């Protein structure tokens, strides 16, 4: 009871400070609206307007058909170049793909000699290269086969492959990017704000003042967690409803309430991480660097930016301990797959546990950090 009252009153003080700060509110608004929106809109597809050139040494109907088969949005309208331009232009990153159609290609196809098409790929952009090459192959193959079988309707492929994408039938990139973007902002701001709140009190001397009062480190830390967490939760909810679902138009498959519950747990974990960092850092400069070192892996390895399966096994075992990874899979499961609590409780529990560990860790370091700066 006593503890609850202290946590409550300290927290209301924190809320006043936070809401009163124009700069911080500005950051929150920027991050939860513009940032999230831009991140989802910037890259509509993984392969989007990829630059292609064609070296057409055949100059036949077929080769011209092939050239016009590549069009936006996946590809830019292909440009014609000559063979000796391939290397310099690819060096200059003008083209991601250069397709070479050999001489006598059309007639070779007609006579069933199975001529070879060369596709040069700038493999430094790994993901686009892999996907784009696949697209090119399938588009051109269809085109060639249509040409070859113009008068021969019988020759269809023996097995028809029907691909369906569950949870996102059109493979709209912005859905995933919107949710990832929202979650990234959430992690980043919760950690930075909560930690900075502690550092600010320490720099202004008010932290000392609180610690000579009958207030435990736990009460102090927890008041920061709930107050900062609450503000961010409000922004998160608004952003989820009006930016992600509203402006970006992501359909929400699962229970919003369940997602919010999980978000509360994650906010606790992230805020605890922020406090932990603030107790380690001795100055704002150090804190800024520590935040970078922590937040970037939390964002990049959470599974939002690249699939978890692509992490090596040893790394996957480590990233299990990132609360952001647990939250990412929790949020994706609810938002896209629409599952219930019975399917996400492991992530839920993991977030609770990880948050608690970070929180306890920061409490252990709390007093030590005060005296160290004495």
């Amino acid at each position: 009871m006593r503890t609850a009252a202290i946590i409550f009153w300290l927290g209301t003080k924190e809320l006043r400070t936070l809401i009163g700060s124009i700069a911080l509110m500005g950051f929150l608004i920027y991050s939860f609206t513009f940032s999230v929106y831009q991140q989802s809109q910037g890259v509509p597809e993984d392969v989007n307007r990829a630059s292609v050139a064609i070296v057409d040494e055949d100059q036949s109907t077929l080769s011209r058909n092939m050239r016009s088969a590549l069009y936006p949005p996946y590809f830019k309208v292909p440009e014609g170049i000559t063979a000796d331009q391939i290397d310099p232009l690819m060096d200059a990153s003008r083209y991601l793909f250069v397709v070479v159609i050999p001489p006598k290609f059309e007639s070779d196809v007609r006579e069933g000699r199975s001529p070879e098409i060369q596709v040069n790929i700038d493999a430094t952009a790994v993901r686009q290269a892999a996907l784009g090459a696949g697209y090119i192959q399938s588009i051109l193959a269809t085109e060639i086969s249509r040409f070859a079988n113009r008068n021969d309707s019988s020759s269809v492929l023996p097995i028809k492959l029907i691909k369906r994408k569950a949870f996102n039938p059109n493979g709209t990139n912005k859905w995933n990017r919107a949710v990832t973007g929202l979650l990234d902002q959430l992690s980043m701001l919760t950690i930075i704000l909560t930690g900075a709140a502690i550092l600010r009190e320490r720099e202004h001397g008010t932290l000392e003042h609180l610690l000579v009062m009958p207030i435990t480190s736990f009460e102090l830390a927890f008041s920061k967690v709930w107050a900062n967490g609450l503000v961010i939760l409000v922004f998160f909810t608004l952003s989820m409803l009006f930016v992600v679902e509203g402006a970006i138009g992501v359909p929400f498959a699962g229970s919003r309430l369940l997602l919010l519950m999980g978000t509360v747990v994650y906010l606790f974990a992230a805020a605890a991480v922020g406090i932990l960092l603030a107790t380690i850092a001795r100055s704002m400069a150090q804190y800024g660097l520590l935040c970078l070192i922590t937040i970037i892996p939390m964002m990049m390895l959470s599974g939002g930016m690249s699939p978890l399966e692509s992490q090596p096994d040893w790394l996957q075992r480590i990233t299990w301990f990132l609360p952001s990874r647990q939250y990412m899979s929790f949020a994706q499961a609810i938002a896209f797959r629409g599952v219930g609590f019975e399917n996400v409780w492991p992530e839920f529990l993991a977030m609770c546990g990880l948050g608690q560990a970070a929180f306890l860790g920061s409490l252990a370091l709390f007093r030590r950090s005060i005296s160290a700066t004495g």
Partner: protein
Amino acid sequence: MSVPVRTDDHLSVSNVAEVNNLKHVYGKTVALDNVTLQIATGKSLGLIGPDGVGKSTLLGLISGARKMQGGAISVFDGSMASAKHRNAVCTRIAYMPQGLGKNLYQELSVRENLDFFGKLYGQSRSERHARIDRLTQATGLADFLNRPAGKLSGGMKQKLGLCCALIHEPDLLILDEPTTGVDPLSRRQFWELIDSIRAERAGMTLLVSTAYMDEAERFDSLVAMDAGRVLASGTPAEIKATTNTDSLEKAFVALLPIDKQGNRKDLMIPPMISTEGEPAIVAEGLTQRFGDFTAVDQVSFKIHAGEIFGFLGSNGCGKTTTMKMLTGLLPPTDGKAWLWGKVVDASDLATRYRVGFMSQGFSLYGELTVQQNLQLHARLFHISAVKTQQRIEELVNRFGLTDYRNKQAASLPLGLRQRLSLAVAVIHEPEMLILDEPTSGVDPVARDQFWEFLIDLSRNQNVTIFISTHFMNEALRCDRISLMHAGRVLVQDDPRRIAESFGGGAHGLEEAFIQSIEKASRETKENSKATESTGASLQPMSASLVNSPRFPGLTRLLAFSYRETMEVMRDPVRLKFAFGGSLLLLLVIAYGLSSDVENLAYAVLDQDQTPASRAYLQEYSSSRYFLQEPELRNKDDLEARLATRQITMAIEIPPSFGRNLKRGGNPEVSVWIDGAETSRAATIEGYVEGAHAKFMERLGRENSSAQIPREQASFQFRYKYNPTFESIYAMGPTIPTMMLLLFPAILMAVSVAREKEIGTITNFYVTPTRRMEFLLGKQLPYIGIGMANFAILTLVVVFLLQVPMKGSLITLTLGALLYVTATTGYGLLVSNLASSQVTAVLLAAILSMMPTMQFSGMFQPVSTLEGAARVMGTMWPAAYYLHISVGTFTKGLSAFALLPDLIKLAMFPPVFWFLCVLLLKKQEK
């Protein structure tokens, strides 16, 4: 209202400075209200009055450090409103701002500090050397040349500050409260030093502000100020004569408007009731060491309940540290302390209800109102709502805060804030008060009111009071005092008894202290030489040494760079974080972020179960990309397992698949892919198509009957630049782009914001430093750090990640240099926008994170972006460096091929500099 000031009897003497109708406001607070005064050449003028009456503002304006709002100031026959004139005369003015060592660099040694100031005034090495020698000889700092300024005592810091101000032999020396927070001995030494300097440099004019009325006696003329206005001026004798008082302290009170004078009776202190019973505070051999520095050395005392115990000593002598140990904030290195017989224990909450604490400086919540601050603390002490209300009424009345109840604490003048702090400290009616310099900077009347309250608490409510102070007349009001110096207690007794042998009163007490500090100093050899000037002359330098360097601007620029470098080197943790952190991130991301998806869990729903269907499925199970999970039972099972992420892909083979295939019936195979993560879904789609095509091919080979059409054309893929097609070759050269942006930018941003917060930015305001010199000077070291980081990252990419570098290292280095200059330039820009370090970090990190990670081509080529994202990518330096890095590493491009990128990159720093120069003001607002 203005009072014409006559500063000298000889009207023929010209004035160094003239101030006319000067006005200055901070928001709604009026700092200066129509001030007019003249400062005569070669004389000394003292500004007296408590803190917050506008003294500092006035001095800042005269020195040119602060931007004028209204009125006129002429210094050396020119208007200080003109930047050109300020620039011309700033070499003749020296300004030492308020606060111990406020304009010093705490991490730098005495010599480095002096050297830095010498460089700013364009002095050659030999000249600086000679000057430093002479100044430090004269001030007794010569023995401590290599000690960091932060580890000097308060008095020595001020002497160093003075030396720094004198290094360019100014004609006008402006000192803002130079002796506040300094022990009595150092204060005396300081003034002796000033006297000897004035004796040797007759033409120099001295302008000083002080809160100590006893010091004011030594000036040629005085100006008494209150609430932004001049109350009176004249020689000390004249002021005493007009007010009919015998001391300046009393004269000052008499000059105040009637309602501010308080009750002018001398405070009466009833004797202590008893010293029986258990002592309230006991300390035995308390010791605190920070590294090799002993802050508190074997301090012991016993304080009785209801006693007022005074703690005296200069700043940095260990008073605050001792208090922190008593409150449990700082566990002692050695020794023990007891409160009411219980050992001080940080986790003991019950004791804390009985103690009230007021820390040095203002430590309340500035953004809360008076009422809210009181309420918050009452609640934290669990005072009932009714009681709280009653208590707040009582305190607000008692401390005269009624009119300010709903004002934000930060907006109150210092005296009121101190009263609020005390009100907060006693809200829970504690039995003990620990007060750390509660009255410094408070005017005499307010101090008396404060003490009335303390005496009432002690004598009528038996509250134990442990208080530290700089004022001798306050010390005399204590029951016992203890003088600390350099971490040790020198004297501990009844103050009246101590003062007795030296003639009694505040002067006697001060004399007693000076003697005991001198004695202690002789023992420890510190300060020993400082007592007297060693006779080293402070005469102007001989002309042979005074030769200005050819490029004074460059010298100043490099002075800033050198200083910044030294500061960074003294805080290696920052560098460790920067280097270690970027290295760690490089490895984590390089290994962790790859799009080579393998071991994808999938399951099959085989409704056919024929050799044909099994043959088809074998294409998947034999692929290294897929990992087969137990077979699916039905459609529901398929959906459930996809939803719960047990599988990411499912294959459904319809009944009679085999039969249809044989008959050429074109059976359909359905594949479900988890599309929640879009890019992974796209990758899986590719793999599925691959496996499917392979089966078709096999089918074609095995069964060359006419039903299976032959492949019409074959595709040959050439993966240029990365033939094995591994993510690491793409990521290795990519990730440093991010590291070289974020780390240097944050370090840079914090560095300038920190100078603003600490106050050393004043040195930029008052020295002839130009904007570009300051900016570039600060930037150079961070460019260096960025390049060191570049070297480390490149080595790791080449040798650990084994990404071969095909192009020229020189091109890459050139690109990195331009890039790091651009990113630190961004940091500079951000730090000019931010007022605090917190905002600087937020701005530097949050604003740059998205354009760098998302829109610069790290994962998505800029050419594939759309809309605002595309624009942001093009306007951001990361995209160009990324291209240079990838181009050099994997494509082996020549400098010629990368020229467009290099040129674009080179355009960023000038843009950032331009914006910085626009934003950076050469004066404080």
